[in-house]
């Protein structure tokens, strides 16, 4: 009987905190073929439920105590990672890179849109360097080869801190995006110690390559507080303000 109880506990234990996977709506990203651009972006909006009236009240009380907004989606409750595979469809070796941007409920950050805005404002193309929230390392891929990788949960967690610092606490993007916060906290000086870091609800994956390649990816979410909307209901759709650098 003890063995049965033990096995039941093991089985139930295996079922806790299991991930959900979200592929891009329009399938894999393919770039670099004849007539195709060398860069493509796919956006995955994660389906979270709206807070209940009670949860909304709790958030307001918490915000009053903190003195600033308390997010509904929190980094400590939602762990996000991205699984990807890059396949070289070309006859020649090429280099590919994965970049990640996104939005929390307060701020949206899109490096390509920021760059485009700066160019339209008259900046010199060579002078415009806008970093993504996560800059993947360029990888060399042989013809026909597939390379798999992961943007880990701790990478996304760092990006979530950086995005909040940029969006709400006026951090300079380059300062926080280049430095890992646990090594060098430069740029995070204005972030209050008691801040609750918001989680991403939208993930934007950009794929660049100098050859014809395909990126298959999945956004993997571990939802510790059952905030994902896995059935019918209203989806949480905050109006995140697009980040624009100060002139």
């Amino acid at each position, binding site marked *: 009987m003890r063995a049965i109880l033990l096995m039941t506990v093991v089985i139930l234990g295996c079922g806790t905190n299991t991930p959900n996977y979200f592929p891009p709506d329009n399938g894999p990203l393919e770039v670099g073929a004849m007539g195709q651009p060398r860069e493509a972006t796919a956006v995955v909006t994660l389906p979270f439920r709206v807070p209940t009236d009670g949860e909304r009240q709790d958030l307001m009380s918490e915000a009053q105590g903190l003195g600033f907004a308390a997010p509904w989606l929190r980094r400590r409750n939602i762990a996000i990672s991205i699984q990807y595979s890059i396949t070289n469809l070309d006859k020649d070796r090429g280099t590919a890179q994965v970049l990640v941007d996104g939005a929390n409920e307060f701020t949206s950050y899109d490096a390509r849109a920021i760059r485009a805005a700066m160019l339209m404002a008259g900046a010199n193309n060579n002078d415009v360097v806008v970093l993504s929230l996560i800059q993947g390392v360029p990888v060399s891929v042989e013809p026909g080869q597939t390379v*798999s990788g992961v943007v880990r949960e701790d990478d996304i967690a760092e990006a979530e801190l950086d995005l909040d610092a940029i969006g709400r606490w006026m951090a300079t993007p380059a300062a926080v995006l280049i430095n890992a916060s646990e090594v060098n906290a430069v740029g995070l000086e204005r972030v209050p110690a008691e801040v609750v870091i918001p989680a991403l609800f939208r993930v934007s994956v950009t794929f660049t390559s100098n050859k014809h390649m395909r990126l298959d990816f999945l956004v993997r979410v571990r939802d510790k507080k059952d905030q994902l909307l896995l059935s019918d209901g209203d989806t949480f759709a905050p109006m995140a303000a697009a980040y624009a650098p100060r002139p």
Partner: protein
Amino acid sequence: MNVATLVLALLHAQITGEPVSPYPDATKFARGIYSEAEVGAVMFVGEARTPMGTGAAVGARVGYDLFRWAAVQVHTFGSSHVTHFPRMPQSGQLLQLYQGTVELKLTARFGQIAAAAMGGAGMARLSTNLLGTAGLTDPDVRNLPVLLGGLTVDYHTLSRHFSFGLGGNFAKYQRLFTTGAVAVTAFARYTF
């Protein structure tokens, strides 16, 4: 008493003593409510064979012997798999399959050995929606009706309550686009 008298006495004892049967008396085996714990492996067959591979499995049964030859049982079972989708980001993910079934078991006993056939139906649940992203189920399908049937061989220890055995079954999962899965397990049984 002389030697002849002693020999006669011994011979008399041998003739009149009840011979002990060398075979177990199955009527003395415990019968009624029983529980089983099992460990083994699950291998998918068909389209999911490569993606799901072979996974370690544990399970438990609680049942009741209606007759010596028939029992009903509730069976919980879980297996864990590492996915393998060549060239796809779905590779290398952990996935668990849990199932609960109600089964009818028919047994034929041959001394300490019993052979049984069982079949049942129930529900299975996938721990994630990963298979839906790879086309092995429809998107976001997690609950799967399941039908299963199998055979077991059981060896009784003659200790009244305990027996051990090996079992195998084939499960067909509705809404999972594969032929099915084969489970092979070793089990220990305790009859109360």
